[in-house]
């Protein structure tokens, strides 16, 4: 089942990338994706981990939109830091609690922190992230907690 899905996804990617739809070339694509999956199966290097994609897509899209706005805001803030004559740097390394339950949501949260310029996830622990900020202010704790809550909200059964 899984093998078939993988082959189908690979074949779909081939169709998207090639852009030439003649029978022979599509046949090449099909053979290539099947051989790739077969060789991967033979090598037996897949770890068999299943990542449950249990996110509600609508909320996730909403979150992406919100994240874009945040990225824009913090981009402008860091740009200002870079371009002013006397760079107002106030570095700090602090803990941020991560209240997400699934690993996927934690990954999304950590990557979102890193994606917004000015804050970077440096180390992950069980329930905490170490976050490094370049121009730290006391509001950052609240802002990151807010972001964490938003990520938790797109999980199934999360507080809406």
């Amino acid at each position, binding site marked *: 089942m899984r093998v078939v899905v993988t082959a189908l996804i690979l074949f779909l990617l081939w169709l*998207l990338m090639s852009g030439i739809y003649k029978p022979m070339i599509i046949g090449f694509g099909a053979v290539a994706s099947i051989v790739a999956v077969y060789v991967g199966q033979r090598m037996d290097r897949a770890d068999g981990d299943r990542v449950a994609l249990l996110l509600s897509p609508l909320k996730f899209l909403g979150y992406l939109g919100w994240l874009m706005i945040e990225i824009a805001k913090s981009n402008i803030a860091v740009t200002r830091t*870079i371009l002013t004559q006397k760079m107002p*740097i106030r570095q700090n*390394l602090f803990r941020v609690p991560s209240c997400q339950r699934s690993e996927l949501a934690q990954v999304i949260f950590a990557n979102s922190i890193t*994606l917004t310029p000015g804050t970077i996830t440096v180390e992950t622990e069980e329930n905490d992230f170490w976050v490094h900020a370049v121009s730290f202010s006391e509001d950052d704790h609240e802002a990151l907690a807010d972001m964490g809550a938003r990520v938790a909200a797109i999980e199934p059964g999360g507080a809406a």
Partner: protein
Amino acid sequence: MTLLVDILSWILIVGGSFFTVVGAIGTVRFPDFWSRLHAVSVADSGGMLLLIAGMCLQGGFTLVTVKLILIGIFLFITGPTATHAVANAALVTGLRPRVARDIEAVELPPYSDVPDPRG
């Protein structure tokens, strides 16, 4: 309609170019490794997203746009992952961030199994 698309993609591409250059300037101007991380992430997230979006608008409804979106999604996921990997490797091998003077530094986990991060 095409005029509108052109104007929009102009804005996006000029903005993307601006952020890319600013990020590069930051990598040169910032005083230490930990602040340079943030400068790079300006170019990697803001500049990359805007440039890809601008090129998508110019590409129209073609396979080119599909490929651009694929590249965009890939960079959107791997960019922060790579930045995190660099930062984490630096922390683990004992390159400590300098915390501003007026903030009390928190205790860090005891790492530094590999000496001399200067390579």
